């Protein structure tokens, strides 16, 4: 089933075309990776899908509904969650608070019910707490729940960011370089972890990643960007043997007469 459809989306900043005519179909349960050299416009594509930028041209639809130009919080509410390239946790708050906050969007009680701790709010709060703790359990951070999130080691911060995104009950998870800065062991764990949460939470995952081992290992399909243009799309095998992709990464062999 098609979940996310990106049609001919372009983002133009002044004279610079950051992303040009980007197309994407993300189906239920798929893992799609977006790769490309630095500055190719990958994060810009992410920011358009999550509502940080409004695309200059084109249409983005989620489950058939047009979500082009909606605010990030509205898009998250409908079921598209994300993580950030440079980790953006709520640094001064505890690990548990970070996950609890991500449940706020589904809270039905108003602020007076919350302040006076009326029955409906108590029920919701209890459910939120249970859900958050079980999420922390799954990502292996339940022991660190009362620690400041900034005190966690890097790999755990990444996991916490994913747990936080999962707390919003997404159907699509967008991961912006989840393996950045990780050592080989952490990278292997992460690959397994992504596959595991995909199955457990019935997610479709769209991710940006530079780490080829991760990308080739778990992606169903790969999209390659260069200078904002999609130069190739296909399964890992096709991408590995695509001449344009090799040129974009390694440069063009020139003939010297």
């Amino acid at each position, binding site marked *: 089933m098609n979940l996310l459809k990106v049609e001919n989306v372009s983002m133009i900043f002044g004279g610079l075309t950051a992303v040009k005519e980007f197309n994407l179909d993300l189906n239920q349960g798929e893992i799609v990776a977006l790769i490309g050299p630095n500055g190719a416009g990958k994060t810009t594509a992410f920011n358009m899908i999550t509502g940080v930028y409004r695309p200059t041209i084109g249409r983005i639809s989620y489950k058939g509904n047009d979500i082009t130009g909606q*605010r990030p*919080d509205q898009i998250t509410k409908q079921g598209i969650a*994300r993580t950030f390239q440079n980790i*953006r946790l709520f640094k*001064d708050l505890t690990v548990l608070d970070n996950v609890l906050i991500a449940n706020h969007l589904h809270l039905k009680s108003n*602020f007076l019910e919350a302040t006076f*701790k009326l029955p409906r709010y108590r029920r919701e709060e209890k459910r939120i707490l249970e859900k958050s703790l079980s999420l922390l359990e799954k990502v292996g951070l339940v022991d660190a729940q009362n620690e400041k999130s900034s005190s966690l080691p890097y790999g755990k911060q990444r996991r916490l960011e994913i747990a936080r*995104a999962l707390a*919003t009950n997404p159907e699509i998870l967008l991961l912006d370089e989840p393996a950045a800065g990780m050592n080989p062991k952490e990278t292997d764990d992460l690959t397994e972890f992504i596959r595991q949460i995909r199955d457990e939470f019935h997610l479709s995952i769209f991710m940006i990643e530079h780490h080829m081992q991760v990308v080739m290992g778990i992606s169903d399909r790969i999209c390659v960007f260069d200078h904002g243009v999609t130069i190739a799309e296909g399964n890992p095998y096709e991408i590995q043997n695509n001449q344009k992709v090799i040129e974009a990464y390694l440069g063009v062999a020139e003939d010297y007469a």
Partner: protein
Amino acid sequence: MKQKKTLLTVISIVVLFLGVYLADQNLDSYKMRILNLCAIYVVLGLSMNLINGFTGLFSLGHAGFMAVGAYTTAILTMPDVVKGQNFFMVPMMKPLDTMHVPFFLALLIGGIFAGIVGYLIGAPALRLRGDYLAIATLGFAEIIRVVFTNIQSVTNGALGLKGIPESSNIWWTVGVATVTVLFIGSLINSSYGRAFKAIREDEIAAESMGISLFKHKVLAFTIGAFFAGVGGGLLGSLMGTIDPLMFRFFLTFNILLIIILGGMGSITGTIISAFIITIGGEALRFLDESMTIGNLVIPGISGLRMVVFSALLMIVVLFFNRGIMGTNEFTWDRLFAKFGKKPLAKGGSKQ
């Protein structure tokens, strides 16, 4: 354990009011006035801390919200005769001149009006961030003051209002302060409070977690304005007289001083520093008068005591840049941890 803590809270509130009763019986009216001011500054400090400290919005519009609350409360509680005496230049507008309600209701309406004004100002201004928001809210507060100076048939203009019934006493001020502490404390510890803190920590991440920035910023701003209005109403009825000049930027600065000294994002810190600043302000009054040190006679320089506060502020910003408490709070758990297994020994201390 949870019940025990609730019990301790109830006990400390009872002890607090017992203390208030004793103070009321034994202290002279000057000292009572200072205590009243302390309690009012707790309300004002907390309302500003909700906006600036917990939600991270740099707003300087507090004097404006207080003015709205103070005028509303005053107009709704003043007897007809006094209104007649006050409005000798321009008669008062029609339904207002014979309108009055009980003090409690007047305070509440004052707060609600301030909240509405807060909402109307917040809705456009909260699209701005950081320094720009500070400038915009400061401007709006000045606009409120100028409007109040000019709508003479409602506010009596620059002449101000005199003879406001002095309904507020230590029970009112400490009572309202207690309610404010409990309300804002409970709000901050709820899911909404967490959302406010998330916005303070990282707006982009908060928005990506599905928190509507606009809705929550306006909510914090409106609740803050409400309590500022209530605090203003209490202040007006304690002073017995108000005029637009009272609500200049200086008043906002005083409250800002309290929350910066106490710690942006700490309720306990705000309470402590409200007492320090208010009592300090009175205790240092001698600095403003002429002094004789040996043979040297220093003529009174009015405002010299503010130099002490300015120096204090600089010291805090330089060396304790998160204030007395930072974002920490007093909790029973913390106290237990500190005093081992004898929680009841210190059960009565609220601060």
